[in-house]
């Protein structure tokens, strides 16, 4: 019981929007498509929904080939970034609309609408029209409509992107619970790594029309298969630098040297790309293997409980992100500590080879 993409690709006017993609999404799972704008998230969703026909390959749902079966013939719900509701319907009528179309009786409609409204905290507004609601309530209405008909596939295309920061946080909190007891496949597109992490479930990282990796979210975050996936799944962007391994030592140009330990000593001598997340580069030594690196401070940001500094370390500009207030002066030479026990090591082509 699953949604399956088999070598699905999409080309429009000679331009590849989606490269051949294989993906299996299980029933009862929460899946995230993570990537920047134009990475291909929306196109991929449209192919899944049957809103668009793949150029090659096939789409299977519960063992049936549904390639080319239109969205109307399939049990699919979608929620978009823009709040889309029927403006002349009340909230109740908006939520009830897919049930009416499907021919449910009045009692069943009433029961389902009320239960969805309860979950999405819309009970007090059922008789209002969308124009009388806040953005958050409008989007809750669209979500209630999406869950009410028990669709087998629910596609959420950046549904929180147009909401205030805090509303986004609140809804992000509630969303997984909406689907907890349902047997549907949820696909959620976002540009924000932390959103993917908080939802958990499974994540597919997307870059330039390619699914670069798919698996359990925290595994993808901690063990990105390549540099591209690591970049997609980092905010601020993962720090990168060329390093050389000689014997038992690593060197970052002439900025830093450290002992290869914890298994990295077995890597062959040669040039590698080191990747380390900004929160593992801190103004004071932290973690198992802090290595000092000096650089010139370019930009500093203090955000209440954390400090961020952009530092030119010669070969690259790195970002340090630390808890607490660590004032830096712009232009000063500052020492940072990179916890090398948290570093990822990639080969020259960007494939992860450690850990």
């Amino acid at each position, binding site marked *: 019981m699953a949604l399956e993409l088999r070598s699905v690709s999409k080309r429009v006017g000679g331009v590849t929007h989606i490269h051949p993609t294989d993906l299996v999404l299980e029933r009862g799972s929460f899946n995230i498509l993570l990537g920047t704008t134009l990475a291909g998230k929306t196109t991929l969703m449209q192919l899944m929904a049957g809103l668009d026909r793949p150029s090659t390959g096939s789409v299977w749902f519960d063992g049936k080939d549904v390639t080319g079966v239109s969205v109307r013939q399939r049990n699919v719900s979608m929620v978009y970034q823009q709040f889309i509701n029927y403006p002349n319907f009340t909230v109740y009528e908006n939520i009830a609309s897919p049930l009416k179309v499907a021919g449910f009786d009045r009692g069943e409609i009433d029961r389902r609408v009320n239960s969805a409204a309860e979950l999405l905290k819309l009970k007090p507004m059922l008789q209002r029209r969308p124009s009388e609601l*806040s953005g958050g309530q409008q989007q809750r209405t669209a979500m209630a409509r999406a869950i009410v008909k028990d669709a087998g596939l629910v596609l959420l295309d950046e549904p929180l992107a147009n909401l*205030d*920061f805090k509303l986004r*946080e609140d809804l992000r909190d509630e969303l997984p619970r909406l689907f907890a007891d349902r047997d549907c496949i949820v696909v959620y597109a976002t540009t924000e790594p932390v959103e993917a992490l908080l939802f*958990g479930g499974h994540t597919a990282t997307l870059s330039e029309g390619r699914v670069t990796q798919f698996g359990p979210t925290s595994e993808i975050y901690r063990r990105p298969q390549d540099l591209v996936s690591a970049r997609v799944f980092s905010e601020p962007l993962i720090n990168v630098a060329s390093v050389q391994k000689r014997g038992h030592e690593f060197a970052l140009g002439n900025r830093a040297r450290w002992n290869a330990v914890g298994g990295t000593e077995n890597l062959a001598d040669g040039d590698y790309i080191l990747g380390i997340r900004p929160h593992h580069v801190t103004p004071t030594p932290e973690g198992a293997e802090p290595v000092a690196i000096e650089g010139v401070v370019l930009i500093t940001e203090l955000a209440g409980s954390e400090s961020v500094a952009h530092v030119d370390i010669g070969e690259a500009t790195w970002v340090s992100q630390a808890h607490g207030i660590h004032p830096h002066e712009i232009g000063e030479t500052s020492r940072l500590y990179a916890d090398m026990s948290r570093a990822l090591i990639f080969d020259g082509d960007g494939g992860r080879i450690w850990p």
Partner: protein
Amino acid sequence: MARITLDGMRHSYSPTPSGDDDYALKRLDLEWSDGGAYALLGPSGCGKSTLLNVISGLLRPSEGRILFDDEDITGLPPDRRNIAQVFQFPVIYDTMTVRENLEFPLRNRGLPSNVARQRAIEIAELLELSDILDQRAAGLTADGKQKISLGRGLVREDVAAILFDEPLTVIDPHLKWQLRSKLKELHQRVQRTMIYVTHDQTEALTFADRVVVMNDGNVVQIGTPSELFEAPHHTFVGYFIGSPGMNVMPCDVRGGQAFFAGDPIETTNANLVKEGATGLELGIRPEFVSFAEKGLEVRVVRVRDAGRSQVIDTERAGTIIRLLLLEGVEVPAETARIAFDSKRTRVYADGWLVE
């Protein structure tokens, strides 16, 4: 450049306001010093845009005065206030080149063309637009266009203040980071009064020296980013700033001692609570709650991986208490005990910090 003073200002969109509820902006007395970086932070409908429009002159306040330095400008139209404004969406001339767009605000004010040319080159340099100065704006991405908008706002040297109205809304997260840093850097270089309106705490806290937190037409607190984080004066500030927001738990206070669910809790200010105070609550940020040998008994109900940290929901007496722990810290299963940092646990009465 100017100091901005709001003196006894109120605004209502109703011609005949009767009570406080009719005011979109409740009484404000504020002074913003020359050259500061300020943010107006709050949810939609809090009055921040109304306040911005009053400053820019698009709106005349129902009551009170607005001064630039010592000059009363309450009745002046926007074009006589000498203010630059950057909006949510790019406001540029598509048919002009990037250079022409940047020079336009200067030429429009009759500056000699060699001066305009020189300034445009400098601003382009700062915003990394030098390479595309002679391209037409029409062909640029949304990010590129918004950078030009920022440049047009920053190009004039004679402005009293620069107002930014959610200027990074259309920008992708990865680029947001860069542009935010850029703006901060620009402020540090040009030292002009800047007012930045946003609902996004990260943007407010990273950009501003002082943040004005608004809710429901009121200024709830004005402070540096770390003051707002460390010592929220209102539970709203605790909730709105910080991610996740501050834990707020019902409590009672007897003989100068706070109790939650029957257990005594050490606080900084329970001894200041007056007899008969109502709406008593404890506020403690998730960052300052930890698992401990001794302490409040709770049930662990949810653990979320946020990458660099973990968000843990615990429950006691129907109240959810959140913890924010570092990546890798072990989380007990089911029942556990938690401790609060007593220097950061405070009592609030009807939402306000007891002082």
